[in-house]
């Protein structure tokens, strides 16, 4: 790795950090050597071999996006809005017999990585339904990633179209996948200059047996650095299933079988008892989560597109839960996701503009996100930390005027304003484009993949519906060419 020093000059603001707290340096400078930041302040006086003119951009730490389904998220965005299954409390989870994303996963993978990078994500926790060997596309793109092969004993189903249920995978599949994953960790953890981390990816509280959970917990006891993610309380049906099968809430169920603590991410935990949609009166699961120091990863738009809000970001925060943010399956714009997290919380708090302030949600994608993955060297610009740096252009209509750069990022900018990104000291995004990926080719190929997926839709849908039956076109369509 190069030992050259690069100095970033002419920033409008630098977001620095000290003792886990961000601060703002107007007209600041940042210098990094190899993959490490060596200076954050007003004026760097040491030598430098390279200079970057920030052209009045805001220099921000790279954003940590802790819940993304790279394998198929781009398939959903044009299908799922304006749909919902009434028998599943408007969730869309159960009616798909098999995941849509089994065709041309490699293309969708690369496309989604390109989208993430182009909009400011520097670290991603990829979830579920992955390629068997996803390490290389992630590594080659230049992104920093946490990845694990997904393990589950059952998958969602809906035999008669109404009742949510689970179909079993062949006996032993889950444990075998978990073993394979741990072997993958031996081989590939820390590859690509340390940018790749292999974690355990358990699918969901309702699709993992107690045995599987305990096996995963055993691995985690042996390896204190091992991270583990699992979807939990992501649907009312799941909540009821866990409650009636095991007599406890999803959080208590996971706790019982060792899946808790600072290494664990509960994906979503949207519907604890007390949420508007969950009228069960049982337990005090948020306190359990807080006491366990388990992280909750919030994906605002993925639920917000159905009108569902976390109740609320601020409440979880105040209870002491460490919250990260993920873009999940909708447009992978981490800046917009911060805005949704903030606004949905203000609404869920009955109209409180001070709830989930810009600072709170900015922390969630930086220092608190870093905490959730045990990386005190990420999510901040501070000497000694990794050089993961995002340049947000301010010289445009949406950002001007800038008074408070954090509010600009959260409330006014979008991912499109990210013009340059440095990850691990290397420039990965130039002029808004990930420079190791060919967007034109990906756009073309992902459309081809989508068209195939759309054709195969009836086979994946439990009612045999076509894509147009499931998600009617907004207006009448006429094919004229």
């Amino acid at each position, binding site marked *: 790795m190069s030992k050259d020093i690069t100095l970033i000059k002419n920033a409008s603001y630098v*977001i620095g950090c000290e003792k886990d707290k961000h*601060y*703002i*340096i*107007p007209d600041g400078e940042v210098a990094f050597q190899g993959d490490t930041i060596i200076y954050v302040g007003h004026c760097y006086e040491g030598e430098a071999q390279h200079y970057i003119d920030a052209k009045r951009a805001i220099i921000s730490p790279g954003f940590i996006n802790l819940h993304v389904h790279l394998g198929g998220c781009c398939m959903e965005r*044009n299908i799922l*809005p304006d749909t*919902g299954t009434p028998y599943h409390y*408007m969730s869309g989870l159960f009616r798909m017999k098999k995941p849509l994303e089994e065709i041309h996963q490699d293309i969708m993978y690369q496309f989604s990585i390109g*989208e993430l990078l*182009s909009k400011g994500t520097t670290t991603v926790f990829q979830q579920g339904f992955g390629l068997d060997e996803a390490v290389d596309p992630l590594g080659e793109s230049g992104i920093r990633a946490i990845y694990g092969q997904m393990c589950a004993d059952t998958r969602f189903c809906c035999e008669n179209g109404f009742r949510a249920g689970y179909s079993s995978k062949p006996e032993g599949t889950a444990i075998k996948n978990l073993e394979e994953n741990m072997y993958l960790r031996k081989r590939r953890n820390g590859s690509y200059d340390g940018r790749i981390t292999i974690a355990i990816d358990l699918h969901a509280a309702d699709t993992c047996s107690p045995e599987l959970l305990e096996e995963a917990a055993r691995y985690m006891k042996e390896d204190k650095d091992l991270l583990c993610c699992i979807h939990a309380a992501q649907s009312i049906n799941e909540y009821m299933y866990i409650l009636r099968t095991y007599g406890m809430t999803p959080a208590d169920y996971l706790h019982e079988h060792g899946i808790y603590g600072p290494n664990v991410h509960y994906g979503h935990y949207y519907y604890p008892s007390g949420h508007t949609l969950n009228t069960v009166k049982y337990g005090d699961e948020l306190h359990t989560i807080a006491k366990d120091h388990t992280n909750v990863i919030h994906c605002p738009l993925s639920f*917000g597109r159905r*009108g*569902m809000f976390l109740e609320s970001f601020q409440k979880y925060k105040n209870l002491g839960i460490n919250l990260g943010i993920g873009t999940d399956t*909708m*447009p992978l714009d981490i800046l917009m996701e911060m805005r949704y997290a903030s*606004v949905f919380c*203000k*609404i*869920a708090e*009955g*109209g*409180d*503009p*001070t*709830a989930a302030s*810009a*600072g709170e949600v*900015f922390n969630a994608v930086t220092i608190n996100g870093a905490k959730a993955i045990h990386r005190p060297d990420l999510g901040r610009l501070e000497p000694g930390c990794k050089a993961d740096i995002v340049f947000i252009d301010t010289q445009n*209509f*949406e*950002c*001007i*005027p*800038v*008074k*408070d*750069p*954090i*509010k600009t990022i*959260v*409330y*006014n900018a*979008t991912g*499109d304003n990210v013009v340059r990104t440095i990850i691990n000291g290397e420039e990965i995004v130039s002029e808004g484009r990930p420079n190791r990926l060919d967007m*034109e080719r*990906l756009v073309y190929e992902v459309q081809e993949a*989508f*068209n195939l997926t759309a054709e195969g839709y009836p086979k994946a849908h439990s009612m045999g519906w076509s*894509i147009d039956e499931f*998600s009617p*076109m*907004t*207006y*009448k*369509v*006429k*094919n*004229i*060419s």
Partner: protein
Amino acid sequence: MCKVTAIKNASYIIGYENGSHVIYKGGEVVYQGDQIIYVGEKYEHKVDQILDARQGIVAPGMIDLHVDMDALLLEKSTIEDVGNPFHFMDDFYDRPTAEDVSEDEQCDMAEFIACELISKGVTCIYAKGILSEGVIRKLADSGIRVIYAPVAYDSQKLKKNRKALLYRKMPENHGKDILEKTMTLRKKYCNEYDGRLEIAVGLKTTDTCSRELLHQAGELLKEDSSLKLSIGAAQTVDEFVEIAYRYGITPAEYLHDCGIYGPQVQYVDYIMRSGHHMNTMILGDELSLIAQDKTSVVHCPWRYGRRGIVLESFEKYHDMGICMGIGTGSSSLDMMLEMRYAAIFCKYAENINPLKGTAGMIYNAATTEAAKALQKKDIGRLEAGCKADIIIVDIKNYDCSPMRDPVKTMVYTATGKNVSHVIIDGKLIVEEKKPKWEDNKRRELLDKIQRVDDAYASHIAMTFPIR
């Protein structure tokens, strides 16, 4: 003869048939001068020039029914996260207003706002602001289609006392003078800017206009059936309660009594009606009255959403028969994002139902319904005979791929930054994402507005400490 331009190589066209948008896969849109002359499969006649849509979506220009020309630009990255607990968390008491800036600065802001809106696909705006020919000219010079309403009022909410709700009376005839001058300007500009500019009557809010002022404006509406009027109504709980205390009726009833209602009139926001969960005063059935009067309501999702307030609900108002439009308000000037906020907030307000506030309903509000609210039969859709107000949305990018339903794409995944071409009144104003105004003008404009903002001293604390 005017030149004939054909837009070719579209992957989708949002056309119009039998009273509704239709999605054409492929096809051509042809316009001559300021008019669309053809939308369909293939134009058989000779054309003078071809515009390559580069596989984008060809759609009608969007209509922004409320652009506030007060100093709202200065709210950006300042006013968020702020609320006044003595006024139901309203941010009025911390908001910059027209008095905080000079007329010259207002003109710069007007130019900035018009340029941003155009570049993000808005082709027609209904703007409210100070009585200034400078501002009006800046807006019209940008090339946008504009209805401008200078704001009349005869009292002002006082900001000094952050706890009590106080009003200061303006000098005698203050509001009346503005109305008279407005009507003079209306005559003066009626034939300028190829008919793109229209002056309308603007009234501030129900609680800052006296009964007399409202009556005078009501008379003007009666005298001139093509005159439009916009007024802020039921914008805050404070305003609703004040009207109830003064007159014993709801804002809608009060306006109705004064003659401020009907198809010529826009109520901006009408969000804090009796029955909204934040307004617990049970009084009257405003929505039925508004629907019956055929008054339209303009919804500005972001400027409420940022404070945690949503309309309850877009679909309910729509189902009551109210003509609903969407406005950006002006601190966020991206109609595509506004549509997304409107859809999501509606789903939430409808007891968490994703089947409400669908893309089609919201998209109509930004196009055909908005045109209806303006009583304009020739904008908001692509159909032969309509004005050539056309946008092209680039879809060959990460935001919009893969594509299936172009309307869902515009509402749920695109942003205004994906707009590649903008044609207003037959004039190509943005081409391949390059606006016709030069880069150094844009540069100058950005610098000017940043300087105005720097000079405006905000007392609001920064998110993180400055070093």
